């Protein structure tokens, strides 16, 4: 029994050490209000006491192999927060941002959300970035009546976590469905062939596109490939036999460019269609003439001439010296929607903020006008782009 008690003593020591840490951690994180967040060093709000600031948080992977998404998201939110702070804040109060890293791990996402809510006392969170993060962090925020808006968790079921959970992004279903409708009605295409990459992204695009296309026109053939492949001649030969007038490529730009090239080599004359996986300058670089005229959906268009988009792109480039991507743009919009709702709720969190968020209607963002459906999911128009003279132009 001696051995057992020794082990138990160790357990108790660990528990006590943690509680001791808990004791000294609390004042530290609220006391050093400016320094506990790495984000707002450029703001003048550092000396402001906690009563004069409105605290919001972000969670997402800032390290690990999904870090690019998380960092873009955080940057997008920071641009939005800077903008509002420069304009005098919300009702005279500055907005302070707390960014927590999750490593892309759902356990850490739950910890990070709990920390933001219980320690930093944020009134709203932008995040999580990955769907699995939002799945574990969401219920925590919902229980605590903290509004959470994810700008990139596309999985189904996210908005159903609870009434405090909102989402501002382009779901795979919506973009494929809208493109199928556009292609059939506006472009007058009739016979569709589909080629998709065999992962969850390709599969959900293909399913949605196929369902809608069958409804409004005809789907003659469906083929598949794996990411990283470079020879698609077998599939394309088969597709050619069916004589389609459009080819929907549900995949990413690298393979899409090669598919477009090889279909041209094979004399397959079709309208190339795609999704947001096309949206990269690399598409034109790799595909050259063969992707000319390709039409695809996107959540954000950086070359959009409208003033709000160009202001965002300029501010983002100034601050981070890089081009904003879709993640940054959607996060920026999510933060703008959130900040507008906070303003309407007079800086209050909880129920008041939830009510204001739910009221959001046709919010003019850089990723299109956004409203929320009853469950908190975004309803927005999809941007449709076309490759013209090696450049992207906006069709809709």
């Amino acid at each position, binding site marked *: 029994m001696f051995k057992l008690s020794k082990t138990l003593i160790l357990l108790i020591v660990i528990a006590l050490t943690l509680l001791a840490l808990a004791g000294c951690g609390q004042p530290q994180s609220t006391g050093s209000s400016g320094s506990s967040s790495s984000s707002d060093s450029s703001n003048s709000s550092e000396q402001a006491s906690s009563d004069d600031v409105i605290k919001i948080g972000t969670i997402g992977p800032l390290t690990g192999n999904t870090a690019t998404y998380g960092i873009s998201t955080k940057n997008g939110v920071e641009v939005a927060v800077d903008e509002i702070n420069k304009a005098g804040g919300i009702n005279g109060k500055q907005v302070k941002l707390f960014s927590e890293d999750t490593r892309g791990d759902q356990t850490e996402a739950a910890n990070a959300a709990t920390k933001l809510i219980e320690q930093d006392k944020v009134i709203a969170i932008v995040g999580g970035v990955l769907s699995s993060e939002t799945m574990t962090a969401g219920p925590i925020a919902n229980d605590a009546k903290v509004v959470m808006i994810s700008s990139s968790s596309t999985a189904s079921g996210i908005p159903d976590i609870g009434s405090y959970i909102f989402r501002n992004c382009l779901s795979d279903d919506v973009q494929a469905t809208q493109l199928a409708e556009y292609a059939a009605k506006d472009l007058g295409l009739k016979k569709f062939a589909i080629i998709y990459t065999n992962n*969850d992204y390709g599969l959900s695009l293909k399913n949605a596109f196929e369902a809608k296309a069958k409804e409004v026109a005809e789907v003659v053939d469906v083929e598949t490939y794996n990411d990283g492949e470079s020879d698609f001649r077998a599939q394309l030969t088969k597709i050619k036999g069916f004589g389609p007038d459009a080819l929907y490529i549900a995949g990413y730009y690298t393979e899409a460019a090669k598919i477009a090239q090889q279909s041209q080599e094979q004399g397959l004359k079709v309208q190339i269609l795609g999704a947001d996986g096309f949206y990269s300058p690399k598409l034109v670089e790799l595909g050259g003439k063969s992707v000319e005229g390709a039409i695809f959906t996107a959540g954000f268009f950086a070359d959009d001439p409208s003033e709000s988009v160009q202001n965002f792109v300029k501010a983002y480039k100034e601050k981070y010296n890089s081009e904003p991507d879709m993640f940054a743009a959607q996060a920026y919009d999510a933060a703008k929607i959130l900040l507008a709702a906070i303003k309407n709720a007079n800086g209050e969190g909880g129920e008041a903020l939830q009510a204001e968020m739910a009221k959001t209607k046709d919010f003019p963002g850089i990723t299109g006008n956004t409203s929320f459906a009853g469950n908190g999911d975004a309803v927005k128009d999809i941007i449709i782009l076309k490759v013209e003279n090696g450049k992207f132009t906006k069709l809709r």
Partner: protein
Amino acid sequence: MRMNYYLQVLTVLGINIILAVSLNLISGYTGQLSLGHATFMGIGAYTATLLTLKLHVPFLLSLIFGAAVAALFGFIIGVPTLRLKGDYLAIATLGFGEIMKNILLNMKITGGPMGLRGIPKVTNIYIVAVAVVIVIFSLNRIMISRVGKSFIAIREDELAAEAMGINTTNYKILAFVIGAFYAGIAGGLYAFLFRYINPNNFGFMKSIEILCMVVLGGMGNTAGAILGAALLTVLPEFLRSVSPVISQYRMVFYGLLLVIMMIVRPQGLLSGTSFYPRYPRRLSVEKSAGKGGQ
């Protein structure tokens, strides 16, 4: 129930302690390198979750049933693979983990890559604390019994153990089954804490994370496994709140700690002070433990 941040970390720690001590039983005491421990956790988590969501089985029952199914898988996997040794066993357990992950990813009932959500929140710090105490207590009882001695004998010298009349394959399978049972409990607790599971939570990286806890704390030492679990769970969270600079690079510190540890103390933090002394004192300890335990 809303949870304080520190209680949340403490609860996660409790789950990690169960995982680390159960892997320690397999890898530390019995000396069988397993790279698929998170898989047993996953089996426990999925079984408990499905029982609760689809059949409305009460929490405790589904937790125990989940652990039992994990133990059953431990048996099924153990029978063919535990005839293998060392690296070969490690590769076989690795393969098993990948197979289970792909099965979970492709089955309809497990929700595929979307996982299972809407799990009720039941796990709290008290339940985890009770589970940790029960697991460690029962593990200690096992380790001071004949069975435990046999485990250690297998680790020290399999041939000699066999010569002493220990059926090494059976005892190795037993260690696997017990370890898998505990991991299944941890998985159930995990599912009912986070209310969402998907196959990626129980992949290779999680197995390695558990192994790191055991190696860091000291193989073959329950207290070491607990300490390892505590360090690797608390450190990333602690570094989060120290200062923004450190918080930005906290994963660097995490990795640095592992590297330094392996250079300075490759046997692990507590390995030298094992609670179960090595030869030749063991015989006398066994006698006194036998008397004292009554």
